[in-house]
């Protein structure tokens, strides 16, 4: 019986290694993970629940998904197996690249590369911001969402420290969106 448990842990570790090597970010890995996990080690319903929760709770999405899937397939040890699989590939790769880059930090071609990358990275951030804005309010973008967006724009403009603005926006959300539950 112990044997089957250990196989599940190894399976989890291998699965998350694979998913995290082949997909560039948390949200992008969902589709891939779905094919790997659903029907084999967890039900569709639990997978949907896992995705829902990892959208709502703070912290890296990929990690939260890994932990949910790991937990429902193999309990607490499953969590750690999945976590190891999800953490190892991206960080090991980045460590190597970061170490290499620090050595060539002042080379001409790297300056050019960064200068070219800057507008594209800015564009990438705009795209993610737009997707986040659209997905964040599951209903239509209503007046309350616009109000929060406008208020935080003003706050950032006056250079109020961003953690305070974000906390304030969250609390405003609790107040504004909370009302609908009394209707």
């Amino acid at each position, binding site marked *: 019986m112990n044997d089957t448990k250990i196989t599940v842990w190894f399976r989890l570790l291998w699965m998350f290694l694979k998913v995290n090597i082949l*997909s*560039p*970010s*948390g*949200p992008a890995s969902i589709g891939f993970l779905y094919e790997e996990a659903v029907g084999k080690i967890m039900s569709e319903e639990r997978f949907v629940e896992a995705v829902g*929760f990892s*959208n*709502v*709770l*703070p*912290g890296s*999405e*990929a*990690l939260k998904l890994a*932990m*949910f899937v790991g937990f429902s397939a193999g309990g607490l040890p499953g969590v750690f197996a999945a*976590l190891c699989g*999800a*953490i190892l590939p*991206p*960080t090991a790769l*980045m*460590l190597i690249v*970061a170490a290499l880059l*620090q050595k060539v930090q002042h080379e*001409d*071609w790297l*300056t*050019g*590369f*960064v*200068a*070219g*990358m*800057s*507008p*594209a*990275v*800015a*564009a*990438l*951030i*705009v795209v993610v*911001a*737009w997707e*986040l*804005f659209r997905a964040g*309010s599951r209903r239509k973008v209503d007046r309350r969402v616009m109000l929060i*967006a406008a208020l*935080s724009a003003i706050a950032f403009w006056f250079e109020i420290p*961003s*953690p305070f*603005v974000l906390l*304030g*926006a*969250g609390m405003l*959300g*609790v107040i504004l969106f*909370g009302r609908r*539950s009394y209707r």
Partner: protein
Amino acid sequence: MDPLLELFWIFLKVNLLSTSGPASVGLLYHEVVGKLVTEGQFVQAVGLSSVLPGSDALQLAMYIGYAVAGIPGGFVALVASILPPTVIILGVTMILHRLRREAWLSNFIEGLTPAISVLMLFVAWKIFQKGGSTGWEGWGIGAVSLLAMFLNAPARIVVILAGLVGIFFLK
């Protein structure tokens, strides 16, 4: 403050206030650029984390931690990024049923989201402005990348191509 402690605190904070790697870029920018890393290093971190496979949040942590304080810095930033979601998930799986009825948490996130989007727009503008080229080349690369990504071109290819264009045309 000791740089390792500072890294730990920053990544703990950023990972408590954002729900995914890409969304944390805005907040992270405000916390580290000018204090711990330069604008150029930050652009490298964001660009590379979208190019390399795996979680963006962890790669950002690894790059910035390493740039500030070498390998120990990378690991401190990593641990601080992993801690909040792990503790929360372990808590949630134990009190899952009770939390399901707690609407305030999802309302909090719903209020947080528009603010994060706005913050990201501000950061995008700053990165663009300080990125080295605000002449027609910079605007051109930015506009083409924006268009390509809205048409669902993979972000990592767009970012690499933009960098390559930079090597040849922006000196």
